[in-house]
């Protein structure tokens, strides 16, 4: 059977993860939960347990008011359109070992959930703390994202924060950006004698899921606020117009920042020379890096084209 609420809370304490717990009558929806803990600040989480056509399972945990579009997520995961459905009720008990209305990232502590992929709302990070059910719906606990991450790492999971509301285009040159979060194998609902085998699979898969999550952490932790950095795909990197614009923007920004009444008064005619020096010092390293990335990307594209070049017809 799955871990009990008490065991989970004890585990959190052992790991020295700060949390506050709030008992309340059993709740099955976020609205109901809000009646009891909605006034405490922080963010309420809504948790979806999803399944794809190949019987792979996902928990999507988001702020209550984040819009989650399953169709978009499905495409971003590389499952095509309409590849994600709500998981059937029985699987809640079988895989996550939690009752109805109690989907929570914390349920990944159970071995049976080892192949379930977890997608966490990036917006959790903007909250002081968020509420989750600790394996039972008669209680909510508040956790900071740090606390949640610490817990996930303790069960050998890599926390993957995703901009759930983003809708990037996916096509031939833009692979599905969340593809690495798809579990490497489907969940095997095994009888006891086989559980040993599937737990062995779990460790291996945990490693590879972890590795994939590391990769996705790399690509999704870019601040999406800064649109320039959000999509560092080859097509964007070698876009000459865009690069020129970005570089000139950085330079202008610096110039405008430095040309103040104060500075003009202080340096007068020398301001020009001073500014010129400052630009060179401050921007040189960044420009160098950006342009080296550009060079290497352009070379790679050429190299790739050369490798797939058809011989000349003569």
């Amino acid at each position, binding site marked *: 059977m799955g871990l009990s609420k008490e065991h989970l809370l004890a585990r959190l304490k052992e790991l020295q993860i700060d949390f506050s717990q709030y008992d309340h009558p059993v709740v099955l929806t976020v609205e109901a939960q809000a009646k009891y803990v909605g006034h405490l600040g922080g963010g309420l989480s809504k948790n979806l347990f999803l399944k794809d056509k190949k019987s792979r399972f996902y928990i999507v945990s988001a702020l209550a008011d984040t819009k989650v579009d399953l169709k978009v997520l499905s495409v971003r995961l590389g499952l095509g359109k309409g590849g994600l459905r709500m998981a059937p009720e029985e699987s809640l008990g079988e895989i996550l070992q939690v009752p109805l209305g109690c989907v929570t990232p914390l349920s990944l502590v159970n071995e049976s959930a080892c192949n379930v992929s977890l997608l966490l709302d990036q917006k959790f990070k903007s909250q002081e703390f968020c509420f989750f059910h600790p394996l039972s719906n008669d209680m909510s606990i508040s956790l900071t994202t740090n606390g949640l991450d610490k817990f996930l790492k303790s069960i050998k999971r890599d926390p993957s924060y995703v901009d759930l509301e983003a809708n990037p285009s996916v096509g031939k040159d833009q692979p599905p950006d969340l593809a690495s979060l798809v579990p490497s194998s489907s969940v095997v609902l095994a009888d006891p004698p086989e559980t040993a085998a599937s737990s062995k699979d779990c460790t291996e898969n945990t490693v590879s899921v972890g590795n994939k999550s590391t990769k996705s952490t790399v690509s999704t932790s870019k601040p999406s606020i800064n649109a320039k950095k959000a999509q560092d795909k080859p097509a964007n*990197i070698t876009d000459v117009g865009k690069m020129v614009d970005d570089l000139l923007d950085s330079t202008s920004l610096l110039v405008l920042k430095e040309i103040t009444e104060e500075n003009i008064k202080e340096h007068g005619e020398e301001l020009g020379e001073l500014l010129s020096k400052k630009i060179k010092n401050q921007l040189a390293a960044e420009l160098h890096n950006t342009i080296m990335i550009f060079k*290497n990307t352009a070379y790679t594209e050429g190299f790739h084209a050369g490798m797939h070049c058809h011989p000349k017809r003569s």
Partner: protein
Amino acid sequence: MKHKQLLDLDSQENQNIGAMEIKENGEEEQQIVNPWKVEAKEGGKIDYDKLIDQFGCQRINQSLVKRVRRLTSRAPHVFLRRDIFFAHRDFNEILDAYERGEKFYLYTGRGPSSEALHLGHLIPFMFTKYLQDAFKVPLVIQLTDDEKCMWKNLTVEESQRLARENAKDIIACGFDITRTFIFSDFDYVGGAFYKNMVKVGKCVTYNKVVGIFGFTGEDHIGKVSFPPVQAVPSFPSSFPHLFSGQDNLRCLIPCAIDQDPYFRMTRDVAPRIGYHKPALIESLFFPALQGETGKMSASDPNSAIYVTDSAKDIKSKINKFAFSGGQDTIEKHRELGADLEVDIPYKYLKFFLDDDIELAYIGKEYGAGRMLTGEVKQRLIQVLTEIVERHRRARAAVTDEMVDAFMAVRPLPNMFD
């Protein structure tokens, strides 16, 4: 990996060392420095002057740094200015040849034993990139997936996978694809490379390799025959697609000083098979967050800053774990100042804060007790976050196709331009 002191007394360079070690053994317990173990004397710090004496390499002095500035027409790298790359062998010869118009190539590498790279791992690569840009020379980077397969008992596939993953972080350091060749041993060993391996192997007796690397009768033969693999990238004929007809080309190896015993073997063999001895330029060890006496370990994520750490992680790690040389109370601190010898935030700034003037200011104020540890840590957090963020951005731009291109056995026509 068991440690054994260098016992080989044959080769000239090693003769002095052997004598020195015998003498020292009579005195107090020594510090231990070799490719598999780095340990200071009884809970103290590594004595680098003694190490240079012991190994017989040269210190890099200010006039050498000035010479580099003159030859490259640009400011020498932070690591050179601050004595972080502080020792060398034959670097002067490399510069002499360079002045005569004879180029050289760079050789560095990584043993891909883990996916997570920390800042300490990046240091030789950051310095090598500077050398590549400043001198405009080509670079070969060896990924010893075979070594890790053997020593860490990984499967062949896993070590190859780690090699490719590490290659991405290495590429993210900003190497120029038109002058860089990255290769993994499993992919590349063979042909001319293997011929050189055999030539080197013939020059090193079993006893010698046991003396240098501490092999025992229980170690498998894979390990015993590995050393030539790491030696031959020092010889240009190992890369016929790059340096054909340039057997006289010199090689410069940037590395941490614990690799020195290893390349002594290579330098010993080189003249016997008709090649130049590779030159070395060596760095200090990057201290763990917990301090000089602490050990940076892949199994303790809090002993180092990883390139995958978030800004939050960096902030929390520095605040919680960076060993402070400040005093216990503010009053005491204002009176005595911080102990810069053991203070980790200050040491880390020495590595990563580019601005000499700002660093000197911090050193002065913090050492006098006018600046508090918290402020120094805050500045460090800023600096490290910027570095890690820049690395992450560059890393995100590295595709599998780019790795393939860097690792393709292809000519590099403009590698000296």
